[in-house]
């Protein structure tokens, strides 16, 4: 019996691991190369594809696919790294919060070394500011419960994927009567950002590789507007080599044959309508507001703020902080990197003044930042 169970599990795992299969990936890579070559010839240039998810950015670098395909497709990163798109003023406000007496800032980790206008969380930490790193916002609530003398402020950073987890952490705090827990929400929404991006006439993107886990929440249909209104095809993709290559193959095929659809190649996780429970949770806890994005500026209805009835969990209401006028790091081109206008290596500071150990901008800090990914995997002198 036990043996049988183990065998069954092995098979189940194998079917998930197949998406990393070397032999299969190698074959698909060849296929993408030969089809891509054809399309490139037909167009007289490389097709331009944009991924709007930091995890995809990293996966393309980590798997070596970006490099392997550099002569065939032009891969651009969009505004898909949550830490990178966070506005400088918001970062300054977080840093200011961390230096308040008794306040402990809870974060997913990526945020710690991001440079603010004058200092970073890491530097404040050295000066006694408290920052705790959590794997889940629910762990942050439990930390607050165990440390009633402290005020835990959790940084709600992320897109539609993270927002439900942060919402449910407030529910958990409510259920357990944890009063020293609050949230600073800078959650952002992907669709309004894509619409803002598409307003730029010179964007020049031929196809989108769409974010697998955001799509798990909002559903495939939510992206139909790309094909219908903008005539740009898209593919929802997972994060394994076969997923990435499959997405490229799909986009090349669609372009080559003059088709234009939003396909779902991550059907093992993403449904047509998305996860309705997660959508309801987001609606129940958050309102949409205009949001400020690095690189994209102000975008209507693009950020999630806590609903009025949840004011007691709103960190900025509980601990109003004043910040001086924020300024972006001088010479940093994160804004252009995040809107696909530049690739990281085109920034003059890349690999010189700006490296992961001494980052100038957030795109070099975050584990999902394009500059960090290029530096770590693609860039070799």
């Amino acid at each position, binding site marked *: 019996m036990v043996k049988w169970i183990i065998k069954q599990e092995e098979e189940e795992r194998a079917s998930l691991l*197949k998406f990393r299969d070397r032999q299969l990936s190698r074959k698909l890579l060849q296929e993408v190369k030969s089809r891509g070559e054809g399309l490139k010839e037909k167009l007289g240039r490389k097709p331009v594809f944009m991924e709007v998810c930091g995890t995809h950015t990293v996966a393309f670098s980590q798997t070596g696919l970006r490099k392997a395909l550099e002569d065939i497709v032009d891969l651009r990163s969009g505004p898909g790294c949550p830490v990178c798109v966070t506005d400088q003023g918001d970062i300054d406000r977080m840093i200011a919060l961390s230096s308040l007496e008794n306040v402990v800032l809870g974060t997913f980790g990526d945020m710690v070394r991001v440079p603010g206008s004058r200092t970073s969380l890491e530097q404040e930490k050295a000066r006694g500011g408290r920052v705790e790193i959590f794997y889940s916002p629910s762990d942050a609530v439990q930390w607050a419960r165990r440390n009633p003398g402290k005020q835990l402020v959790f940084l709600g950073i992320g897109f539609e994927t993270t927002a439900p*987890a942060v919402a449910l952490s407030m529910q958990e705090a409510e259920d357990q009567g944890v009063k020293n827990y609050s949230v600073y929400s800078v959650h952002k929404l992907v669709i309004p950002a894509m619409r803002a991006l598409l307003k730029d006439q010179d964007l020049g993107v031929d196809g989108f590789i769409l974010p697998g886990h955001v799509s798990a929440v909002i559903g495939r249909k939510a992206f139909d507007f790309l094909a219908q209104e903008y005539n740009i095809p898209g593919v929802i993709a997972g994060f394994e080599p076969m997923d990435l290559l499959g997405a490229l193959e799909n986009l090349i095929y669609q372009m080559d044959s003059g088709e234009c659809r939003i396909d779902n190649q991550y059907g093992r996780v993403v449904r047509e309508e998305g996860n309705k429970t997660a959508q309801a949770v987001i609606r129940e806890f958050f309102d949409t507001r205009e949001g400020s994005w690095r690189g994209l500026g102000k975008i209507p209805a693009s950020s999630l703020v806590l609903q009025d009835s949840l004011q007691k969990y709103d960190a900025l209401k509980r601990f109003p902080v004043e910040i001086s006028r924020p300024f972006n790091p001088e010479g940093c081109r994160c804004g252009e990197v995040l809107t696909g206008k530049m690739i990281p290596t085109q920034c003059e500071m890349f690999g010189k003044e700006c490296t992961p150990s001494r980052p100038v901008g957030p795109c070099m800090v975050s584990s999902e930042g394009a500059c960090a990914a290029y530096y770590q995997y693609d860039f070799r002198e």
Partner: protein
Amino acid sequence: MCLGVPAKVIMINNENRTALVDSFGVPRWVGITLIPDVKVDDYVLIHAGYALEKIDLQEAEERIKLWEELLTLEEES
């Protein structure tokens, strides 16, 4: 940050809507509020301490089969 890991549901605690999951040998408790109909033995995608969506293994297999077929066809032609 939108990273997700697959895991198999081992045990469900309905009282607080959490589940013990096995993520390729690593056990952990996660919230299951976002998937009301989750069952033991289901595969789920974990993100930030919550199961975000069910993983459809059959669909996964079908997709791979599709690739296998396409790629051998290409080879033969």
